[in-house]
Structures are given as structure tokens and as C-alpha cells.
């Protein structure tokens, strides 16, 4: 991918239904990020529906759909990404301390 190119865009068609439902297109991502993110967002209180699809196996992108009761979909996406980031950071910290402990013994 070229630098300065945006990874994220929005699929048109949801403008009439307010901010609560959107389909985002994430470039150069697949099941790795899609499923992990879906797994978090689906378990939020306000979320009606969250799912993702790889529209075609030859194209490296995913469609990520969020539908909520009230909260704007964008906010939910941000929260999901933030939570996934925190999960990663926590895993890394814990893992590194465990490796250190293991090497000591």
C-alpha cells in the first residue's frame, strides 16, 4: 500500500437513516481484524447488529457493518478499536512478564 492512502471509507446508502448505522470499508484487512473487532463490538450494550464480510476473496478489503439503537456507529467503531488495542497491550504486558518469570526459573 502506498503511504498517505486512507484505509477506511464508508459505503454509501445509509445517509437517510441517521448516524446509527453504517458500513465501513477497511482496505487491506481480512478475517484477522474483522472477526476480533466484531467479537468485541457485538457485545456492547447498545449494539443491534455488527458483522463483517470479505466481499470477494481476490480483493483485500472487508465490509464492516454496525447498527445501533442510539449511539452513532462511528463512536462504536472507535470504542471497539480502542478496546481491541487495550486487549493487545494488556496481552503484551502480561506475556512479557511471564516470559521474564519463565527465564528466571
Amino acid at each position, binding site marked *: 500500500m*502506498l503511504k498517505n492512502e*486512507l*484505509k*477506511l471509507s464508508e459505503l454509501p446508502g445509509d445517509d437517510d437513516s441517521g448516524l446509527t448505522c453504517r458500513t465501513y470499508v*477497511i482496505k487491506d*484487512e481480512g*478475517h*484477522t*481484524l474483522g*472477526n*476480533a473487532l*466484531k*467479537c*468485541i463490538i*457485538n*457485545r*456492547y*450494550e447498545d449494539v443491534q447488529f455488527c458483522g463483517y464480510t470479505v466481499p470477494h476473496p481476490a480483493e483485500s478489503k472487508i465490509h464492516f457493518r454496525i447498527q445501533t439503537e442510539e449511539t452513532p456507529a*462511528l463512536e462504536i*467503531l*472507535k470504542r471497539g*478499536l*480502542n*478496546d*481491541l*488495542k*487495550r*486487549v*493487545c*497491550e*494488556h*496481552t*503484551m504486558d*502480561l*506475556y*512479557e512478564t*511471564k*516470559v521474564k*518469570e*519463565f527465564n528466571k526459573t
Partner: protein
Amino acid sequence: MFKLDEKPRVFLEEFRVKNAPDDYGMADEKWDFKKFTKKFRIVIVRMDKWEMEFDLIGLQPAFANAFRRLMLSEVPSMAIEKVMIRNNTSIIQDEILAHRLGLIPLKADPRLFEYRLEGESEASEFDTLEYSLKVKCTAKSQNKDTFKPEDLYENHNVYSSQIKWQPVGNQASIHKEQDVGPVHGDILLSKMRPGHELDLQLVAVKGIGKDHAKFSPVATATYRLLPEVTLTRKVSGSDANLLQSCFSPGVISIDSEGCAFVKDARYDICSRNVFRYDSIKDAVILSRIRDHFIFNVESVGALPPHIIFIEAVKILRNKCKTLLEELNKI
């Protein structure tokens, strides 16, 4: 009835795999980061330079799978990408030879290099490693008493140890030859006879397994759920021996009174052999713990396995980070 302690399980029954009746799947729980950190545990079981086994406990399958996928296809490593063939008179064709060379694991640490940008033709010391392979097979002075090739020919086998590193730019002062060469010196690349000759220039770059499997830093990266074997009644005598023979070695032990007990079910292969015997099939519950993942990571040689896992998690974090940054700009 026999009562098991509370853990999410899948039961391996005689003819089916059944979820626990009170377990609606971990997907239904509301997300709570604090709860996650409280429940989440990591246990390192075995670790050396090449292989490691560790447990991730209290985790969603989606995360475990993401980590596995990242290790396989998105953690970078260095591999030979281009082969310039000046001369190849051996019987192995150019393209086959080039492919073989590409699959050689290199010791070079990918963290010290950058990706070569698309369309960039000039090699720089920060993104490229260059090697040369120049071998010529010749006949040794005739020795009539032998038919062994090693007595008759010089260089009739070409091994990966014959690949010579050629520093680009300032590389010689940063890297050492033994840190960038092939992981194994005894990989047979080609067999030759007198008159055959190889003269190649090899170019290695940084890449990821998604592009080509040769860039994958792991030989295997797998996870499985922790098996559990529970005995619901006393099994003794010949039944105890029969029970023992139904499981992997070390799973079932027999005490001094001839009673069977579960010693360690961790390495059970979860065959359902017990259910073939009517006399003991009511005495066991076979299950797996649904949030206990046993990871097995085997490195190809460039990075130790614990670093590969850390790198994988780091990549997922960076994906979130770049997307968040992009969202915050709008």
C-alpha cells in the same frame, strides 16, 4: 448426578459433541475490559530457541485465532526474493533453482530491516541483503578403485552453507555474516557432475506470509482446547487397565489399590476409544475447556518463538492504532 466445577466446556460424547446446557456461548457476555483483565491468564509451559508451548486462559476464540493468523501470515521475515542467474549449467532448471533458494530460511532479524517499497529498483542497505553462490563441479584426480561420488568429484553437492553474504553499503559494520546467513548449512540445493556450474546473485528482502509462505516466521503456529477427562465412579481391576489403554500414555494412572485415576489429561489426543467398551463407558466424561487455549509455536529460525508472538500482538495493536488515528483526523 456427578457435578463438574463451573467452566465453559464442550462435551465429547459417544456420537456427538455437545455444549453444556447452561452455556450460551461466550459471545453473549457483555464486553467489560476490567472483567477481561481479571480472567485472562498466561502460562508458559515450555520454551526454547525453536519451540514453545503456552496457555492463554479466559480468552475469546476470536482473539486466539487472530493471534494465530497473525503469526502465520503477517509477522515479517527475510527471504530470498530475486535470483540473478549469470550461469547455470546444472541439470536443475533456473526457475526451480530460484524457487528452492527462496525457501531457505535466513537468520537475518527482520526487525532490523525495512520493507522494500513497490516500484523501487535500487537496493539500499536498509531493505536488502545480497548473497552470491558460485560453485563449479570438477573431477578429482582419477581414483580407479572407487565409485563413490565424494571420491570422484569436487563440489558435486551444493549446500546452503556455500552461500556467501555480500554486504550492501554500510552493512558489514552493522551485521555479522553468521547473523544473516542461512539458518541451516546442510540444505542440499543441487547435485552436480564435472562441467556443471552455478554462478548466482541472490537478493533477499523483507516480506510477510500473506504474500508468500516463505516469508512466514513460523513452521507451525497452532492452538487447541485443553482436554479434560473426569471419572464419575470407581474403576478398578482389569477395567482400570482397559481404561488406561483407551487414552494417550500418561493420562490415566493406576494407584496401589488398583484403582484408576486421571493423572494429566493435557496431552490426551481426545480419541473416543472408551465408548467402545460397555463396562467402562459410563465411568468417564470427556470434555474440552472452551476458553483454555494451548498454543504451540515452532520457529523457522530467524526469531525465537516468544518474540514471534509479541510481534503478532504488536501488529494487531498497530492496525487498531492506524485506524484510530485515521478516524480522529476526520
